[in-house]
């Protein structure tokens, strides 16, 4: 019954089944939808082939939203990983108050997304935000900066907020991975290299590389597919500055009652995300997917 060699499926099914039930079935359904005209205000759900795809790909928002999403992801995922890993490395140090810092680092994680948005609005708000307060207070600027109302700045701000929310997980995962490194390997490294950065790059990084790849994939996916925080902060604006592709799925489906188009857009994003995963795993080869030696 428990023999793994003979019944590997028995060990896998508990994980595969829920995923299949709550992801594969809905995905299949969504795919079906993407090939049909499913508009709630119109009768019937006729098959339309790839019309929906053509429609979303040629829609007015697609180009901007797609670029925004891709840039957002290309910035957010590496930023989260780099900052998270650096913080994790730093937090391995023991110093007075290190436990406090370790705990505080987790704070962004325990805040629901809507709340993070509120707090960051408060940070960036032109009239009562803390940053402008400080800048005005010290006389660095004489008129408040319109953080969230200036296209480039708004993009940067939502990026900061997004990175902020994702860092704790990166820290936790990296620290867990770091703790799984044989301490003597690290000791050997402290003898071999005096340069902490090199020590990280040559000894520590290879040991946590697989985990970093997972982190990158996860963060790329998250950055590519979430929009709650961004929309709560900017509503996608000003103009189209922070309009994200993932939100358009929602808009097509629920605001325009066109579920076919929404689903089609989702599968366009799947294609991009899959490409992305392939790129990440190619760029950072790790034995993540291989057979065990």
């Amino acid at each position: 019954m428990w023999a793994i060699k003979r019944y590997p499926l028995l060990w896998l099914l508990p994980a595969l089944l829920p995923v299949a039930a709550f992801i594969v079935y809905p995905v299949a359904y969504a795919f079906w939808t993407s090939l049909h005209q499913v508009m709630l205000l119109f009768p019937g759900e006729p098959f339309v082939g790839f019309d929906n795809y053509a429609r979303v790909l040629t829609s007015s928002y697609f180009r901007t939203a797609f670029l925004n999403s891709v840039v957002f992801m290309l910035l957010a995922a590496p930023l989260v990983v780099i900052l998270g890993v650096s913080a994790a490395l730093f937090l391995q140090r023991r110093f007075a108050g290190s436990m406090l810092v370790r705990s505080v680092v987790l704070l962004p994680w325990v805040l629901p997304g809507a709340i993070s948005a509120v707090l960051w609005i408060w940070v960036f708000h032109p009239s009562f935000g803390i940053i402008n307060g400080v800048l005005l207070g010290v006389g660095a600027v004489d008129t408040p900066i319109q953080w969230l109302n200036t296209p480039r700045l708004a993009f940067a701000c939502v990026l900061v907020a997004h990175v902020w929310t994702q860092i704790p997980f990166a820290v936790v995962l990296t620290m867990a991975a770091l703790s799984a490194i044989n301490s003597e390997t690290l000791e050997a490294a402290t003898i071999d290299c005096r340069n902490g950065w090199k020590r990280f790059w040559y000894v520590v990084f290879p040991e946590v590389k697989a985990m970093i790849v997972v982190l990158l994939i996860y963060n790329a996916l998250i950055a590519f597919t979430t929009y709650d925080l961004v929309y709560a902060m900017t509503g996608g604006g000003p103009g189209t500055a922070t309009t994200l592709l993932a939100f358009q799925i929602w808009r097509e489906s629920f605001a325009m009652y066109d579920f076919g188009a929404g689903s089609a857009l989702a599968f366009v994003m799947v294609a991009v995300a899959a490409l992305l995963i392939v790129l990440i795993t190619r760029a950072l080869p790790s034995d993540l997917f291989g057979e065990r030696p």
Partner: protein
Amino acid sequence: QDITLEFVVWNYALDTIQDNVRRFEEANPGIKVNVTDYTWPDYQDSLVLRFRGGTQTDLLYGGQDWLPAWASAGWIAPLDKIAPEGMIDTLSGEMAGFALSDVTYEDQVYGLPYYADTISFLYNSEILEEHGIEVPETWEDATAAAEKLKAAGMNRPIVYEYNQELPNFFDAFVAQVYGRGGDLFDEDLNAVFNQPDNAAYQHLEWLRDAFEKELVQPENHESNIITTMNTGQHAFTIVYNYVLAAMNNKAEQPLAGQFSLAPMPGEAHSTLGFAKFYAVTATTADDPERAEAAWKFIEFMAGQPYDVAKRWAVEHGLGFGQLPLLEDQEVREAWGEWVDMDVLSNQIENARAGTWTEWTAVWSAFFRPLLASAMVGEISVEQAMNDGAERWNTLREQFANR
């Protein structure tokens, strides 16, 4: 046998809703009402999901912009189906014109107002006084006033609710166009707003100019407008009346009492009036037992003697579609705390209903990003208006042929 009605709301002042429901239950033994609330931005999506998923829903808050779509999709039912003969006519008679228009689709009344309100032009009277500025009569006045304030060191005199994902964004724009005395559509529902002499066209240009001159500070949620205006760094805003009530709330806000309502600038001083209403789903209307209970509920909430509507007005400053309440002493007294009743009454009388079709909501979702882009100068006003008009016409055709 108890009946439990499923009542879906957005969660503005949820405790008051629940208190009202409790009172209803006390008055109507045997009927229980289960309240499910969603946030305003999620509300219509959640309802669409409930409709599509077939989740038991008896009563709900409706909105003027969704009514034609929901009614034509067969999700909600006309109240005649559940109300006693003649009752609806009676109640309609006491409704403000824009409110009645908003709850009516193809000549049938689908709801009774939960609240009905106008979108208003608000200003900080102390600031205006301090700078010797008159209350703007026209949009050009508004620009002039804002420029004067800006010159005097006020960074962004106008606070503007700018969130392309909320229907409010479109509603506010329409209200401003109505202030100018124009409309976006002609009698036959043709889009005319892409003509440069159309008021909408001109107003969008006005907005674009105001943004360009850095007179406007966008806020993406009305709740932020309350706090932002209360920092005293801004003089004007355009928003729902109950927001004014919150801005002038002495218990909470530092500058309470400084904010006043002015007639919407423009030649007509008109504005958009709208109604949110209690509606009944089609499935419930078809089930006699539930239908009866549902009617009792709607009648309790929105029917005579309008106690609940009055409560909303008194406690939260929500407007109402039931005209008799305008004369109610208690209401006038409570409102007097935060608004000049005469100005407000005038504005209400001067308000117009919007143009709501089956495809308005869909179109508005498409049009709002265009508006937003045009305001900040990403695209030209002309392009925004033309694209919007084109989409309008396509949709109109599609719906005609469906």
